[in-house]
């Protein structure tokens, strides 16, 4: 019980910070590869998505208050934009080149969402810390 009364939810907020920063990494990678037509497998780059899932905390007997986990990072298989670029080495016989399915605007929106969620988790963590300090203050008579 000591974790509950002293540092309520610090681990939970930490899992949120972790997950959102992983998401930020994946978004940054998508944006960085917005023009990549040849990946390690020789195919055009496919944008990646993170899959979040609740982390269960059975140990505390409260079921689901375990924070969040990044379960998987999956590729978005939707087709990319076709552009006419006959001189490009990755263009097909008709001179059409498939560009990555990265939409910069959508990535920016995702980035804002990740950044806001990160800040909110950080702020919750600060509150938890202040609460712990207040509990200790009872002992010292402050």
């Amino acid at each position, binding site marked *: 019980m000591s974790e*509950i*009364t002293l540092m*309520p*939810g*610090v681990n*939970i*907020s930490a*899992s*949120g910070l972790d*997950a*959102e920063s992983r*998401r930020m990494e994946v978004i940054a990678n998508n944006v960085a590869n917005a023009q990549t037509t040849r990946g390690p497998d020789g195919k055009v780059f496919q944008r990646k998505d993170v899959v*979040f*899932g*609740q982390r269960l905390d059975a140990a505390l007997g*409260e*079921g*689901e*208050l*375990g*924070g*969040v986990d990044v379960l998987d990072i999956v590729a978005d298989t939707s087709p990319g934009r076709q552009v006419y670029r006959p001189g490009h080495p990755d263009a097909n016989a008709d001179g059409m080149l498939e560009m990555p399915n990265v939409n910069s605007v959508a990535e920016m929106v995702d980035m804002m*969402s*990740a950044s*806001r*969620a990160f800040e*909110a*988790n950080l*702020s*919750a*963590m600060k*509150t*938890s810390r*202040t*609460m712990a300090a*207040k*509990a200790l*203050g*009872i002992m010292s*008579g*402050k």
Partner: protein
Amino acid sequence: MNETVEILGKLMDATALRQKVLSNNLANANTPGYIRKDVEFSAALADALDDGVDDIRKVQPEVISDTDAPLDSRGNSVSLQKEMGEIAQNALLYDFAAEMTGQKFNLLRKAISGTK
């Protein structure tokens, strides 16, 4: 030891649990299908206050699923603004209980030492 300290202790327990639950909501702000949770205790505590200190000991804060909150396109009902607001209010309540408990002990300390 003292009814006031007992009540304040309950309040601190419940608000600490609520902080945890609200943090969990924020952590899952982008988890598809996550329904926000909350803690129910003020009604039970108010009931117990009417009935006396023995009932206060039995009050258990309860984690509930908040099914009224609107869902977004991914079936998630967490709103960052709402959770931040609740966290601020809840922390204030916790601070209040901690402060009052401290005051109570200060009084006790003064009574024991006989100084002002």
